[in-house]
């Protein structure tokens, strides 16, 4: 059984940032990732990272925009921390070599983004995530951070209410391993693959959130799922908000710039939840194109600007939709994009379970509340990644390594063996498709009791069917079917939590919109949902929102 003081699960931005910080603070840290670090989903982020660098801007304004954007569900102290540390976090990245786009004067360029009162999104053309992820990996290598790649963590080891380590499968050999740790930091990203229409990569299956949930840690605000308004029709590949930030228009089948009806001031740059609902409304009311999409028009920006600021989008549109945005508008539709909810943490990444920390998309601090502003996710990973790394390093200095028996290993080994040896049954992908479909249909942009209950029933049936699944590949060597089967198990757990929270929350706030309860209800619902696993399904409780400076008010754009 190997051991490290700190184990980070996930090698995306938050995970690597935490590991670098912990190592620099003298910690013995190792990162586990089911992929090679540069394959992490962060690599796909396009738009940018927010920071109040401008002379006329301030972190307070940024924090306010964040809080308002969250539909007042964000914990304001956490939002303040994130926005206050943003400028230094971005400058540090620049020093590390991130290739930000520049102004004429050579400063880090910033573009306007949805819901921001000031252009504060720093960007690297439209491949910001890619550049950040690679730079972070470079720094991890420079600092000698130990990374176990293709080691898939499948459960947390928790005894006496303390997290003592993880159990993981070595994908190459199928061998089950247990790793002891004084502190485990979850940085496994979001859960997009719960939905059949998502911008997230095929490996974004919410592993860490589900592991924490199974270990008895409640999950917070899972019903708040962000749907991105502009993804390529059919493939659902992300078309960054940056395209609208640079001046792109959203046009319906009648040729109208319809955002005028929904957000007359900000138009296309209203926050995502508002834009998404606008897009879906247009389609539902018959003003979309056959098949269910509308147009994102970039033609008026001109070839030069598109090539300079949005080259990735141009290439993606040409490759995956057969459209050159210089000449034609891009067909787009909404898709799941981000998970606002996650493992509850404080501003230092500590979860309610001793020894367990979380950071990045899989955590819920909560800075994004009911709706996340574009550009704040990358920021979240860097700021809180650093904080959790520092905190964990401090924590392990004052803690002794726990121990546990081989029992957990044997249990997991048996589970895997059972899964592999099953000779007949349903295929994983059938379950996955069914899950994805019901979530898109019933737990999407516009929700109501009827649809949510249907989803609950569907999920119940799927849970039964999951037990009968046959992997049909009994080899231990690099068994991707086994990995997928384990991932779908995580996804199903999270889907149940999302549905439970959505059913219970009888109001509309941010990305959670109930057609039967279309208004925001601060009196009854200005609170965070907590879902704890029980044998009867998720059990809900609530906790208050931390309010420091800004009293909730009407959210108009």
């Amino acid at each position: 059984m190997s051991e490290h003081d700190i184990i980070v699960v996930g090698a995306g931005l938050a995970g690597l940032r935490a590991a670098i910080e912990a190592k620099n603070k003298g910690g013995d840290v190792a990162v586990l990732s089911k992929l090679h670090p540069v394959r992490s989903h962060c690599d796909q982020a396009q738009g940018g990272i927010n920071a109040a660098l401008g002379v006329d801007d301030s972190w307070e304004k940024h924090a306010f925009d964040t809080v308002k954007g969250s539909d007042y569900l964000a914990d304001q102290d956490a939002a303040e921390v994130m926005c206050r540390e943003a400028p230094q976090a971005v400058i540090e990245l620049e020093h590390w070599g991130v290739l930000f786009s520049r102004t004429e004067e050579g400063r880090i360029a910033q573009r306007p983004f949805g819901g921001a009162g000031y252009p504060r999104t720093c960007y690297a053309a439209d491949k910001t995530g890619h550049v950040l992820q690679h730079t972070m990996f470079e720094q991890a290598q420079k600092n000698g951070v130990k990374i176990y790649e293709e080691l898939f963590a499948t459960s947390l080891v928790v005894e006496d209410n303390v997290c003592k380590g993880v159990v993981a499968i070595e994908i190459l050999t199928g061998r089950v391993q247990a790793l002891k740790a004084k502190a485990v930091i979850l940085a496994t990203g979001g859960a997009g693959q719960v939905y059949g229409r998502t911008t997230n990569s095929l490996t974004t299956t919410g592993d860490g959130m589900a592991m924490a949930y199974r270990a008895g840690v409640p999950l917070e605000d899972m019903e708040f799922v962000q749907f991105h308004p502009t993804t390529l029709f059919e493939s659902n590949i992300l078309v960054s908000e940056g395209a609208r930030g640079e001046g792109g228009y959203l046009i319906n089948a009648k040729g109208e710039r319809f955002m005028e009806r929904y957000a007359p001031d900000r138009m296309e740059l209203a926050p995502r939840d508002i834009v998404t609902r606008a897009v879906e409304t247009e389609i539902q009311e018959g003003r979309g194109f056959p098949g269910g999409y509308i147009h994102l028009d970039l033609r008026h920006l001109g070839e030069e600007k598109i090539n300079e600021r949005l080259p990735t989008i141009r290439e993606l549109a040409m490759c995956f939709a057969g459209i050159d945005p210089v000449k034609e508008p891009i067909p787009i539709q909404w898709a799941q994009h981000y998970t606002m909810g996650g493992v509850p943490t404080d501003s230092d990444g500590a979860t309610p379970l001793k020894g367990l920390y979380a950071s990045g998309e899989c955590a819920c601090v909560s800075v994004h509340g009911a709706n996340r502003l574009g550009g704040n996710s990358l920021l979240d990973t860097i700021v809180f990644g650093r904080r959790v790394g520092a905190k964990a390093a401090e924590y392990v200095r004052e803690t002794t390594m726990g121990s546990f028996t081989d029992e957990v290993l044997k249990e997991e080994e048996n589970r895997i063996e059972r899964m592999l040896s099953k000779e007949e049954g349903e295929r994983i992908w059938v379950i996955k498709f069914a899950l994805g479909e019901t979530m898109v249909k019933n737990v999407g942009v516009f929700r109501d009791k009827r649809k949510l209950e249907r989803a609950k029933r569907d999920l119940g049936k799927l849970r039964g069917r999951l037990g009968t699944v046959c992997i049909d590949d009994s080899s231990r060597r690099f068994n991707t079917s086994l990995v997928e089967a384990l991932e779908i198990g995580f996804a199903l757990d999270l889907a149940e939590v999302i549905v439970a929270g959505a059913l219970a929350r009888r109001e509309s706030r941010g990305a959670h919109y109930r057609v039967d309860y279309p208004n925001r209800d601060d009196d009854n619902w200005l609170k965070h949902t907590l879902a704890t696993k029980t044998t009867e399904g998720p059990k809900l409780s609530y906790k208050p929102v931390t309010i420091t400076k800004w009293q909730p008010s009407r959210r108009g754009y």
Partner: protein
Amino acid sequence: MFRILRFNPEIDKKPHFDTFKVEIKGRMTVLDALENIKREQDASLTFRRSCRSGICGSCVMRINSLTKLACKTWATVEAPKHSAILVEPMENMPRIRDLVVDMGEFWREIDRGKPWLIMDETQAADLTRENLLTKEQLQVSSKLADFIMCGACFSDCISRVFDKNFNGPASLAKIHRFVADPRDKDPLGRVGRLVEIGLWSCTHCYFCWSQCPRDVRPMAAISTLRVLSVAKGDASEGARHVKAFMDSICRTGLLNEATLYLKTMRLDVLKDLDLMIRLALKGKAPSPFRLPIPRIDEVRLMYRLMEGRVEK
């Protein structure tokens, strides 16, 4: 039709091909087809994939004998090339299972190049302001930062097949990304270390250029690094070769094979003594005396004008 190389060391003694029939619809990519095969025909078909949008680099494999990203390769484009679309794992890396290879060698080569910004630590710790840099200053690095470390160039690199000391196109391109970045504090040191990692092993086959799914053009980076290395006083045979070429063209406007050969190989020409004799007997031996072309002064003027104009 897809012909896919299969190999699971747990059960197979050696690799073999399996054929699968898939109905190609619309914009179906090779990755879509593989997923389809895995779902409907053979769940044991093994391959890596994640983003399905051409940016993570996981699904790289050989399709019709050249390395590409499966998610960005269209079945309709590949199908007419052969009776069956040939799908094999990457070359130059040991096989793990089916289309999955062990990229350890690739990552080790990347590591050899110190692939991170070498900073002045005190400067880096001052977080009051960013380094002021213009778009032009960062242009080269920004283009090189497009790369996704998929390994396609490494897989198709011919030199790498025969020369395991060759650092490889991806790593050299990554090194150039730092050499060209004004913030890097050790460009000269980096350039100085290139010869020992095989800077001169690249054989100009241009496969890394044609196969890069992000159009990073590693060979162009290698050429630029060679320019910098020569300018820095590189004394290796490769550098001598370049200098001999330049010299010959400046003097006569032409390539003088004999002097090029002598200047590059020096005493090593003795290895080819037998060949030289045979060539001479056949009247094929290149003369060391070649008359300059007409209007050679034009060529020499261009040399003088362009001297010393070397950019990173």
